[in-house]
């Protein structure tokens, strides 16, 4: 069992990494506007896998607020949509993890996280703009979520294997 200081330090480092990845990803050019890899979710997943749901929540909330402050998007509609989607994605990933790692590996967690993030984003945008037909974006959102979820899940599996223990 790791000491609490070590645990705190690790979670702090993961939160710092999440902020950097989140801001960096916002700056990087995107081939398609809907294709965001979700690199910021990687430290959240690592916190979930190494230290449990509460640690993941801490990393996710710090990422959203500090990242939002740094990128200047704090408190605009896009921020609230992203933050809501982030919370929903955390909830679903935590539930998937709680089922046990023999049911879903890191790749499964990554897919759950990315796909629910995409779906929640669409749902919140729908609530905000109040128009049906946002759902024509559903297939693209699902495809993007599936691909980025697999990639981030593989990265998380690989990093987790080498960093914890």
């Amino acid at each position, binding site marked *: 069992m790791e000491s609490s200081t070590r645990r705190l330090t690790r979670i702090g480092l993961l939160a710092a990494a999440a902020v950097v990845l989140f801001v960096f990803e916002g700056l990087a050019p995107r081939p398609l506007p*809907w294709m965001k890899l979700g690199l910021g979710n990687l430290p959240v997943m690592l916190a979930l896998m190494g230290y449990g749901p509460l640690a993941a929540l801490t990393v996710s909330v710090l990422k959203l607020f500090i990242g939002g402050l740094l990128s200047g998007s704090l408190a605009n509609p896009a921020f609230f949509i992203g933050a809501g989607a982030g919370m929903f994605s955390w909830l679903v990933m935590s539930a998937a993890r709680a089922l046990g790692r023999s049911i*879903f590996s890191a790749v*499964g967690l990554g*897919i759950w996280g990315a796909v629910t993030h995409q779906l929640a984003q669409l749902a919140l945008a729908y609530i*905000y703009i109040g128009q049906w*037909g946002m759902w024509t974006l559903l297939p693209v959102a699902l495809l993007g979520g599936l691909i980025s979820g697999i990639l981030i899940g593989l990265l998380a599996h690989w990093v987790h294997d080498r960093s914890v223990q």
Partner: protein
Amino acid sequence: MSRAFKELQWLSILTKGDRVLIAVIALAIGGLYGVELRKEEGARVVIRSEGDTQIFDMADHAIRSLQGPKGVSEVEIGSLGIRMRTSSCRFQRCVHRGWIRRQGDMIVCIPNRIVMTIQGKRAAVDAVSR
């Protein structure tokens, strides 16, 4: 076998749950794209901005300017369909959406509060079963 190659064998880390999840999502995507491709091309476009609704015929090619809270957005109706030509919003998602032309297709600009929907000749019906 080199170590780098072993790390590429990622299929082995997938659990049964992972595989089922991937299969279900892939099927959903396939089904949704199938429905999308069977939609007919639209005839009219409904543009809503700031509580204002305008309807244009898609055969009348034109460029129109709309005033939103973030500034002016230009809508273009052309032979490829309709698109947001320019927009004074930050992320330009509406512009990147490109041309749309099928019934039910939609371009939404959240920052500038513009929604464009394509309708058929008659009332907006998704499909008719015979």
